[in-house]
Structure formats: structure tokens, C-alpha cells
């Protein structure tokens, strides 16, 4: 099984957001960067599929600044075989531009499976995987929380409002993965040592022109200070009155 996993370096979920001086981006001073958590599920899934098949290769591809090499090394330490960095000074807000760069690298790679996270927790674009699938004209299932592959076909389950959607598709395919698909492994010390020697190719990203322009990044408005209506069950009637007459939500 030859599997590609697209991975992104993102600010850690516990980051306190400060806006940079340009008023358009995150001030990354002191920010910890991690492998996008959904991409961790994707890397884990790729490793398991390769292990089950008993042979194959797992290639991780990231588009981003030089520092994304650390992210690639994390995936290599988990067990991926080699990495590719598509270098760009910064990752554009336009997911299609990113998808074009990734698709150019993936094209002709002979992959049985191309995995993505369902969403990057920084930009929350929720789009790069299916866009790459369109550009490569491959079948695609998004947000897979359950995946079965056998005999050149696959079935997946994805969460939709009020239930789980069951989907069938042929391979090769693009799959974006959701939480719940697996429990990602921690890189062992041996893996971390081995990762240092694994191949990591760096080339420029073919991003093309982006069609989205960031005007401003702002902090969300603070919610105005609320009030304690009272204590215990005795406060319930007062609460209901406020919900009806002041908030007008009942």
C-alpha cells in the first residue's frame, strides 16, 4: 500500500490568541506549534494500513514555512517513511491555492490512498482534502470516523446531523479523517532517533495566485458580564422571567 498523508503545522489549541502588528495574523511569539490533531489520526491510519498490508510506503507532505520540517519529523517519528516539504513563506488563507500545491506533488505518485485531516484547527477551512480530490479527479469521502478497505473498495461512516452516513467508494481515493477513527501512537524514542535519518525533500510550493485576501484579524467581542440570578431551585422562576421578558428566548 502506498499512502500519502497531507499534514499541517498549526498553533496549539491552547494558544492564547494575540493579533500581530499587521492586524491580519496571529502574533506567534511564544506560541507552541503542533501537528494538526486531525492529521495525527490520518498519519496513524496510514501506518496501520501499511502494517496490515505488510508492505508499502507512507509519505507525509506539508506545505508551509521551513519550520514545518519539525512537523514532518514528528510524523516520521511516528513511523512514516519519508517527508516532502512544499516550502512557502506562509500558508495562504485560500485553501484552493494550498490544494493546488499539494495536488501538483501528489499527481502521478501512484498512491492507493491519500489521507487528510477533516479540518486544520487554525484556519478551520475544512476544505483542502476534497479540493485535492477534485483536482486529481479521485473519489473522496470526508470526515471518516470509521473506515473499512478490502478488494479495491472501501466503506466509511461519517457523522451527519442526527446520525452516521454510510458511504461506499472505489480505491484509489482521498479520505479526510475525523476523531474516533483510531488512537494515534506516541513517537517512541527509537522512532524519534530514526526520524532524523529519514529522507525529507524540500521544494518550492506551486501555490499560484490566491483568491482570498485577509482584510483584518480581530478578537471576538467579549460577552458582556452576566449576572447571578440567585441560588438554588428558588431562583428558577426569576430565571424564567428574565428569559421571557428580557432575553426574549422563550
Amino acid at each position, binding site marked *: 500500500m502506498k499512502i500519502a498523508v497531507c499534514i499541517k503545522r498549526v498553533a496549539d*489549541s491552547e*494558544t*492564547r*490568541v494575540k493579533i500581530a502588528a499587521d492586524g491580519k495574523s496571529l502574533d506567534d511569539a511564544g506560541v507552541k506549534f503542533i501537528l494538526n*490533531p486531525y492529521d495525527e489520526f490520518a498519519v496513524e491510519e496510514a501506518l496501520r494500513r501499511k502494517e496490515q498490508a505488510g508492505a508499502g510506503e507512507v509519505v507525509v507532505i506539508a506545505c508551509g514555512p521551513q519550520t514545518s520540517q519539525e512537523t514532518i519529523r514528528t510524523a516520521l517519528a511516528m513511523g512514516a517513511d519519508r517527508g516532502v516539504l512544499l516550502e512557502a513563506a506562509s500558508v495562504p488563507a*485560500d485553501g*484552493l491555492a494550498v*490544494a493546488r500545491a499539494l495536488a501538483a506533488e501528489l499527481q502521478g505518485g501512484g498512491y492507493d490512498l491519500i489521507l487528510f485531516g477533516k479540518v486544520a*484547527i487554525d484556519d*478551520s*477551512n*475544512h*476544505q483542502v482534502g*476534497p*479540493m485535492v480530490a*477534485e*483536482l486529481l479527479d479521485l*473519489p*473522496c*469521502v470526508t*470526515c471518516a*470516523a470509521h473506515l473499512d478497505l478490502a478488494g479495491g473498495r472501501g*466503506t466509511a461512516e*461519517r*457523522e*451527519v*446531523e*442526527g*446520525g*452516521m*452516513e*454510510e458511504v*461506499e*467508494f*472505489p480505491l484509489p481515493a482521498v479520505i479526510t479523517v475525523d*476523531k*474516533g477513527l483510531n488512537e494515534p501512537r506516541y513517537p517512541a524514542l527509537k522512532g524519534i532517533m530514526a526520524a532524523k535519518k529519514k529522507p525529507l525533500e524540500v521544494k518550492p510550493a506551486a501555490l499560484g495566485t490566491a*483568491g*482570498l485576501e*485577509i*482584510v*483584518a*484579524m*480581530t478578537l*471576538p467581542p467579549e*460577552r458582556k458580564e*452576566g*449576572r*447571578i440570578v440567585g*441560588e*438554588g*431551585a428558588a*431562583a*428558577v*422562576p426569576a*430565571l*424564567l422571567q428574565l*428569559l421571557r421578558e428580557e*432575553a426574549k*428566548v422563550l
Partner: protein
Amino acid sequence: MSHVLAVLEQRDGSLRKVSHEVVTGARRLADALGGEVHALVLGAGAISGTDAAGRFGADKVITATNAGFAQYAPEGYARAAAERAKAGGYGAVVLAASAQGKDLAPRVAAKLGMPLAADVTDLAVEGGAVVVTRPVYAGKALLKVKVTAGPAVVSLRPNVFTPVERPKAGAAETVVVPGDGGRVVVKGIKAAAGGALDVAEAPIVVSGGRGLKEPANFKLLEELAQAFGGKAAVGASRAVVDAGWRPHGDQVGQTGKTVSPSLYVAVGISGAIQHLAGMRTAKVIVAINKDKDAPIFKVADYGIVGDLFEIVPKLTEEIRKLNG
């Protein structure tokens, strides 16, 4: 002047309510662009409820049918929507950032070779260009983005664009889409237990956390939700989802769902930053917690300090009376 294409959503032959929001968002853009709203519904045959599209501002409703479109057909839907968008020369294409829309919108945008402004919470036209606001970093920041290529493809965060009645002709048209549904085939939807309303879409969400003490006690919240008469869903904090008390689909927060209901009731939830990320855009927040210093009270509009096991049953009883 240019028209706007609103791509609506149906399930089992009925228009879904999020479609009213899509028409409302599309109407706002069309008014600014001086054009019409054309609503597109994809299905295997006639879809019930499409008359609502006219009520919320669609000048025309196009039902595009294909035998393979009874269930969501990712590739067939994307092809049909993109072809319609191209043929109509639209200035913007609007979809819902629902489960289906999150799958469909990127495909449509890629087919058009256009960027996708996803999961937006506000949109406008400035100097002829579509400008949107979208939450990033799990809602910890807002990005204002200008779409510099057209048609602008935009998906709307559910529950944010309150449907506004703007009656238009809503002239109906049916077209047959050639070809099949595509390589990716949806076999069906296994309904969640109880066929309950999804937290991401419910107008009222009652969420419980570790303060509930054990899974069986969620019955209290289910009863409270029922008292609201089919408008409420039960959500959960990650602590109780990780403990296996509630399904992952119910989790609200950074690694769960983002909800914007008109009323969010947090019961026995401390209000960790990752939980707040998922519900801070609710219109009204009520917190019930025995710890008066719990951070949830910092974002709650109204709070009651005390034991949830006394407060919730009383609240349920009072809501029932109200809804008679």
C-alpha cells in the same frame, strides 16, 4: 448586477431548515449586488417544502433531478451545482456549512476553480466584492476576508443567519440532470439513538458536564430538553464524552461541535476555554453550577448557583408549565 445561486439541502425528500438560512444569506448578497436569488435543490424527484425558498427571498427555485440523487451523491451533486453555477454566470454561490455542505462546497469551489470562504458568520458586499467574517483558531479570533475572484463561493455557519421572510416569486422550474450520482455512494444514514435533534442545529441546547456525576443522570437533561417541546438537543462537555457517558457527536467545544443556539444551558460544566470555544456565540447562555467562581459564569448571561440535582427538575417543571 449579478444573480446569486443558493444551493439548498434536502434529506429524504424534504427541504432542511438550514436551507432557509442559505436563502436568507443569498438574498442579502443579491440585494447588494442588485440581482436575483436562484435556489437550487438536488433530488431524485420533487422536494417538499421548496415553497419556503420563495418566502425567504428566492426569485426562482430550480429542482434538479437525477435517479441517483435520492441520497446525497457527493460527485453528482457537485457536478450539477458547478454546472448550474457556470451556466448562470452567478456573482456568488451560497451553501450551508452543514455536514453535507462542508463536503459539497469545497468540491463545487474546486470545480469552478474558485476559493471557498467557509463557515462564515457574516457577509456583505463592499466595493463590489464579497467580504465575509469567519471564526478561526476555534473562535478565538475573527478573520475578515475579501473574495477577490468570482463567483464568490461561500458557506454559512448554521444557526447564525436568522431566516428573514422576504417574499419573492419563487417561480418553480425542474431540470433533469444527465449522468449518474458518481463513484462515491451514500447507502443511507443510521439514525442516532432517539433520532434526536443535532446539537449543531438545535435552537436550544442543554449541555451537561462532569457535575452530572454519572451517565444515568443525563436523564434529567433529556427531560429538560423534552420540556422545550422538540426544539432542544442535549449536548455534553468533553470530560463526559471521554468518559464514555455521551456520544462524541454530542460534544460541544473546540474538538467537538460549534453551536450557536438562541439558548444554551450549561449544567455542571466548569467552562474551560476549550468548551467556551464551541458555544460562546450562543445568543443567550444560562449556567447552573454549584461553584460560584466557575469560569462558566463569566460568559453566562444568567447564572444560578447551587445543586443541579435540585435546580434542573424545578426548571423542567416550570418550562413544562410554560409550554402547557
